[in-house]
């Protein structure tokens, strides 16, 4: 029995919803990573880019799909296609720029040339070297199995049997994207921040839902007012400094109430209620976009109340501030992080500038928040490699088995104080994907029950 088989056989031990424990081996094991690439990134609908990044015919953007790179290309008729960035002749990349505008993609190895639609349109010396026997129509660039957009967000899958994007997203995934799309006439601001963290990708996902960490991890950002400060109240007991002094931990108002949504295929939304953010900011004004009747209706009863953070399984995070982060696994211990930032085309110059400044100063490698996050993820990943350290289970026991799940509008909602339900749900769903079930089985096994 191979190690991979033995790990698959142990899936129930690796992730336990009942105990709220995760086996640390899932963060460093090479064979687990290979299975993830095959059964998750080889099948799921994956976010590629936003339509506004490629507005003109011939505009392209290179995006990852697992270990493959695809070119997302605006067609002459305005539609969008995506194909692998690998020549059908000898495999060389047909494009080595991250983005740009072209009339054709020409392979620099032998000059095979492909149209915007991926069709092979030119082979140098076709009659001399191939005696005109090469059927060009049989050797286009390999296309993704399915490509669809939801409100301008472009997704693709390599699995032709995958359900439609709308079905894959379901109410929770669609709400996640609506929470960004409803902000206005949204377009991507030029420039995608891209950087590398020595971490397993699952730590970056886990962190999206974690409202227990900001008070300690982002203490310095609170202290200098880089993010709206919690009220002047402090948590009793708990942390002690290395000098033995009591660390005054700012009390997070998010502690009062969180709204969590967990859903089919592993998507989840978890974070404070909108009212809490308004309390932090001292008004509803920054959130005016949420309060038009159309938006309230679109977001629905629970969607109107949830502030963040939505995550579309496996690796797309939408922030409460109008950004989208893609977490790209490169190896078990290396993850690339990309930040797409959006703006409302119709917003005033001042408003656009203020939001842009927020995007630059919160997240990204120089972000006053994410600097500290990366440090945590890297160290957590490092400790999963120790022969003994890796045997210490990862704990997700907060509020375990105590929270009732309310089913309404196709959503599965939990209202509770800060908790670890969405993280646990993500790992549970991850485990079910790795069993490589049919889409029907996967859907059934990732349908929330009554409690978590």
């Amino acid at each position, binding site marked *: 029995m191979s190690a991979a088989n033995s790990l698959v056989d142990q899936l129930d031990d690796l992730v336990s919803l009942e105990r709220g424990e995760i086996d640390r081996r899932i963060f460093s094991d090479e064979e687990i990573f290979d299975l993830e690439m095959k059964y998750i990134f080889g099948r799921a609908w994956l976010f590629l880019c936003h339509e506004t990044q490629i507005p003109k015919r011939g505009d392209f953007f290179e995006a990852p799909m697992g270990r493959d790179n695809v070119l997302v290309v605006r067609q002459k008729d305005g539609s969008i296609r995506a194909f692998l960035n690998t020549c059908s002749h000898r495999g060389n990349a047909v494009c080595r720029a*991250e983005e740009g505008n072209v009339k054709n993609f020409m392979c620099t190895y032998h000059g095979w040339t492909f149209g915007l639609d991926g069709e092979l349109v030119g082979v140098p010396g076709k009659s001399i070297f191939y005696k005109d026997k090469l059927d060009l129509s049989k050797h286009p660039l390999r296309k993704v199995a399915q490509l669809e957009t939801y409100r301008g967000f472009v997704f693709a899958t390599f699995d032709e049997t995958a359900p439609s994007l709308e079905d894959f997203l379901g109410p929770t995934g669609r709400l996640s994207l609506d929470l960004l799309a409803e902000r206005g006439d949204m377009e991507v601001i030029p420039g995608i921040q891209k950087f590398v963290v020595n971490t397993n990708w699952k730590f970056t996902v886990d962190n999206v839902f974690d409202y227990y960490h900001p008070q300690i991890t982002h203490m310095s950002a609170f202290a200098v007012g880089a993010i709206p400060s919690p009220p002047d109240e402090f948590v009793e007991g708990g942390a002690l400094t290395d000098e033995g002094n009591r660390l005054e931990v700012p009390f997070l108002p998010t502690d009062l109430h969180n709204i969590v949504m967990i859903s089919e295929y592993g998507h989840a939304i978890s974070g404070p209620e909108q009212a809490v953010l308004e309390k932090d900011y001292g008004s509803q004004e920054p959130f005016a976009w949420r309060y038009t009747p159309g938006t309230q209706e679109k977001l629905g009863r629970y969607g109107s109340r949830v502030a963040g953070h939505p995550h579309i399984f496996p690796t797309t995070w939408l922030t409460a501030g109008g950004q989208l982060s893609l977490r790209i696994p490169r190896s078990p211990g290396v993850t690339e992080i990309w930040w797409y930032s959006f703006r409302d085309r119709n917003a005033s110059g001042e408003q656009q500038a203020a939001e842009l400044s927020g995007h630059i100063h919160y997240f990204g490698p120089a972000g006053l928040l994410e600097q500290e996050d990366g440090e945590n993820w890297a160290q957590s990943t490092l400790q999963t490699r120790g022969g003994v350290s890796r045997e210490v289970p990862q704990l997700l026991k907060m509020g375990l088995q105590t929270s009732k799940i309310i089913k309404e509008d196709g959503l599965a909602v939990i209202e509770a104080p800060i908790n670890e339900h969405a993280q646990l749900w993500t790992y549970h769903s991850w485990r079910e994907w790795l069993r490589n079930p049919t889409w029907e089985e996967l859907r059934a096994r990732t349908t929330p029950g009554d409690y978590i």
Partner: protein
Amino acid sequence: MTLETTPVDPDVEVRDVLRQYEIEQFYYKEAALLDGHRYDEWIKLFADDVHYFMPIRRTMTRRQIGREFTQPGEMAYFDENKQQLQTRVDKLSTGTAWAEDPPSRTRHLITNIRVEDAGGFELLAHSNFHLYRTRLKSEIDEWVGRREDVLRRVDGQLKIAKRFVYLDQTILQSANLSNFF
């Protein structure tokens, strides 16, 4: 074998040589402040209306190389005014900025300094940098690039009125930019 020396360019004036020396010393002092974690002194080198900007660099074809860097108003890694730089400095001194505690060891190597008049009391200074950083037990990060500074003489003191930092990397090969450039 005889060593032939090139005569000094008659167009180079002593004034320019002294100015070059002054700017070089200014940058070396700035590097020493950063590498010595003396951020409170470092920030005093900046004019109150400074714009400190690090654009995003993108891998583009030669034909479209003009679009390589993002512009102000677009996405960037740093887009700071004095107050925002001050906030970053303050954050480092809180004792809870964990990405810099334990502190990084850095070495700012500043080279290829070229100075030109920008008119009035301002100079335009181009320089290259190599920022070497080690963190914790064995982490190593390196950034190489160039800076474009506008230096202004205020009450006889040089101040950085504008700094644009152009990194040579497109996908940053590091987890954070918790240091200054």
